[in-house]
């Protein structure tokens, strides 16, 4: 009875439901008024929040004046973390590659356990603003500060490229714009408010963005589970039956409460048996067991080495807040990560009809809601949520990149006497340069969003992570070891990137296929990160020990 009442309400309030299918709709194409209004209202809110909470000095710009609570910081961590890759890309990977897509879900959450038990509190105790700050100080090396600052910028850059791609896709969908214009407009808006606000504005925005992301991401999945007769009260569990249905197949017509279940095109909600969607490393998906493990490991280790994530622990007032903000952040992240596979599952079912065909992976979340006949305003909110996710991450990345540029390169290396006003100006110039460069690369569409982002993770895992891990946990790791380890990490990164770029341009190098598989650009950290750690240890053992004052500081301040 309850279900029938709710069903009637859904039909009345959500209009274009599958049961009264508004057939022959278009997934792409024209300008969508409702979603556009939601998007514009969202963006205006971001800018106003940015202005209201704008940075007044460098401490505000880099570390939000250390005024953020642990729950607030957890929301900011989640929002900063949940990028277009989480909201759009992850479901796309599962839609396209089945069980192997789950390596992204596990990799992007499991890394937080490493981050918590090995890094969070220790980083906060060390008391430095940025990742290069820590590395330069811990390894008493100006060179390492410079190189790590450059890599911080490169990692932020690689991460941003996927985000700008996601922004472009959603602007294209809502505004009916060309992809290139969509990227340019989206990047201009995110640049504007990052410049005005710095991290304190960004942190406040991140909390608002988190609420938008969660509400917009969860609402359609409740509606879809309800409409297609799965356990809708907890769709994150309810979609399990849909996974099994995909494996076994659903014959048409699929009847519920005496009515045929249809997608927005009026097609049956049915599918031929498709175990490849759920079975591990299915040969038909072109993926392997090794790739599952390599991707998962690279993403986990990369999580604990991403400068813009590590940087968030500087903004909490106390060490205990750093620890609990990880827990809150992970919980908030998981709310979305439990839901993303449900989108790919419903997307699979709703696109099984040959007239729909295989959908663009990076837009599967929005297409699924659309094909499920969810009201266009709710789908618009979902798209705005995806844009929020990309915006919040980009803001954090631009701040991290700008910090590395102004604080670690300009102030610490080029002009130590720079006034706070000059520092702020340099940070803003750095942000503009980076945003422009990212926009240009994003226009090239080099890969799927999740794959592009995973490059940043592997880079971080090979370069920043080993320096933090050994810098915190082994007093014997010295400057020479750090330099050698960093060199090993950079070497693996360079080889992988060179082979990727050559392969992309149609060229071939010796061992192209071997390197493209074993040192693939999406997961090369599986070997790069352990290698960097081993080299660091070996060289440290063979060279002059770490100075007394560094060991003493670590022992008394970080581990006491």
């Amino acid at each position: 009875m309850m279900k029938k009442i709710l069903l009637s309400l859904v039909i009345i309030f959500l209009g274009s439901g599958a049961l009264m299918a508004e057939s022959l709709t278009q997934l792409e194409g024209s300008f969508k008024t409702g979603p556009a209004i939601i998007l514009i209202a969202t963006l205006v809110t971001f800018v106003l929040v940015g202005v209201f909470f704008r940075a007044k000095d460098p401490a505000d710009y880099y570390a939000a004046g250390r005024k953020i609570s642990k729950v607030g910081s957890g929301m900011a961590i989640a929002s900063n973390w949940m990028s277009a890759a989480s909201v759009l890309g992850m479901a796309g990977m599962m839609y396209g590659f089945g069980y192997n897509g789950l390596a992204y879900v596990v990799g992007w959450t499991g890394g937080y356990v490493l981050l918590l038990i090995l890094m969070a509190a220790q980083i906060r105790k060390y008391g430095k603003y940025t990742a290069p700050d820590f590395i330069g100080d811990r390894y008493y090396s100006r060179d390492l500060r410079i190189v790590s600052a450059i890599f911080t910028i490169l990692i932020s850059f690689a991460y941003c490229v996927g985000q700008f791609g996601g922004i472009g896709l959603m602007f294209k969908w809502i505004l009916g714009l060309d992809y290139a214009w969509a990227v340019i407009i989206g990047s201009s808006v995110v640049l504007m408010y990052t410049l005005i606000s710095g991290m304190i504005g960004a942190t406040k925005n991140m909390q608002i963005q988190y609420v938008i992301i969660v509400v917009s991401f969860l609402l359609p999945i409740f509606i879809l589970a309800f409409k297609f007769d799965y356990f809708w009260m907890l769709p994150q569990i309810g979609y399990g039956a849909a996974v099994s249905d995909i494996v076994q197949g659903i014959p048409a017509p699929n009847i519920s409460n005496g009515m045929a279940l249809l997608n927005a095109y009026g097609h049956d909600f049915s599918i031929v048996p498709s175990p490849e969607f759920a079975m591990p490393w299915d040969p038909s998906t072109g993926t392997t067991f090794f790739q599952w493990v390599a991707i998962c490991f690279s993403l986990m280790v990369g999580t604990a080495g991403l400068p813009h994530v590590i940087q968030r622990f500087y903004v909490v007032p106390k060490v205990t807040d750093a620890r609990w903000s990880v827990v809150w952040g992970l919980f908030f992240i998981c709310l979305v990560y439990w839901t993303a596979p449900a989108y790919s599952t419903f997307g699979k079912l709703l696109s099984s009809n040959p007239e729909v065909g295989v959908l663009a992976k990076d837009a599967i979340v929005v297409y699924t809601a659309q094909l499920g006949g969810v009201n266009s305003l709710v789908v618009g909110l979902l798209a705005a949520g995806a844009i929020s996710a990309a915006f919040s991450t980009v803001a954090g990345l631009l701040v991290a990149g700008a910090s590395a540029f102004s604080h670690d390169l300009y102030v610490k290396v080029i002009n130590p006497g720079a006034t706070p006003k000059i520092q702020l100006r340099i940070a803003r110039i750095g942000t503009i340069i980076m945003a422009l460069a990212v926009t240009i690369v994003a226009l090239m569409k080099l890969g799927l969003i999740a794959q592009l982002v995973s490059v940043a993770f592997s880079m971080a895992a090979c370069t920043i992570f080993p320096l933090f891990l050994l810098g915190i946990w082994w007093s014997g790791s010295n400057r020479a070891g750090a330099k050698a380890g960093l060199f090993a990490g950079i070497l693996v990164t360079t080889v992988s990137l060179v082979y990727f770029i050559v392969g992309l341009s149609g060229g071939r190098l010796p061992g192209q296929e071997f390197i493209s598989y074993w040192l693939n650009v999406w997961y090369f950290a599986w070997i790069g990160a352990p290698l960097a750690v081993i080299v660091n240890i070996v060289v440290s053992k063979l060279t002059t020990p770490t100075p007394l004052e560094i060991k003493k500081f670590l022992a008394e301040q970080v581990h006491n």
Partner: protein
Amino acid sequence: MESSDNYNFSLFKPRNLHGKKNRNVILVMLIIWSVAVFGFQFLLRGIEKPTPEKTLADFESVWPQAISKDLSSVDYKTLLNSLILVKGKNMVKPDDQKILNEAITCITFNLIPDSIRSVILSGISNINSMKARISGAKDQEFLDLKTSILEEQKRISVMTTDFHVFVQGGLEEKIFLGSLVATYPGSLSDNSLGRLPEIMKLYLIHNQSVLTDAIFLGFPFHYFYTAVFLLILFIGLCIVYNILIEWRLKKEGIVE
């Protein structure tokens, strides 16, 4: 003079009792974490067996007759059904789809009389030209083209219904109609003959085991474990770690 050795430490060799207890917690957490994540995947890998779908057995039972061109009408329908069930999986690569389409068209038209075949071929050409136009169409033009395509498909559906076992208007019939191409090759090309068995094996054999076949809360168990349980475990590990660390700090009177 202060010795540098007094301050030596590592994760495995902490400097004091507090550090040792902390190390134990960290190592236990790391072991649980790594076994839960990677141990399970290795277990999955270790016990899996390549398991074919029933459709593969159907295909293999009639494929030798297809090669020797000795198919009965029942065999034709069995073969067609198995090809459709693979074509309907939307992970099929474009090259493989092409071969499947060619095979489905060839098998179907072998059964259909010449007079009907030519009408169907012209209908397919018509649909193809409308499909080419629809990608650039918007609003009313899009709807008109879509309606015309559906009408043409219905016409072909009526003409072909005696030559297959699919329910009219059902998913399999739609896959079937969408697979027909506008050229009738007469017989399967050497490439199709060589590649079809490989294609069928690629899409119809899966890595399965007791962990993938067991159902838990509606999920295949391994899917639930990876997509749902591991995330719960990560949060649980983090909470337990924080509580343990803070309890110990409080007990030992350490203020961070």
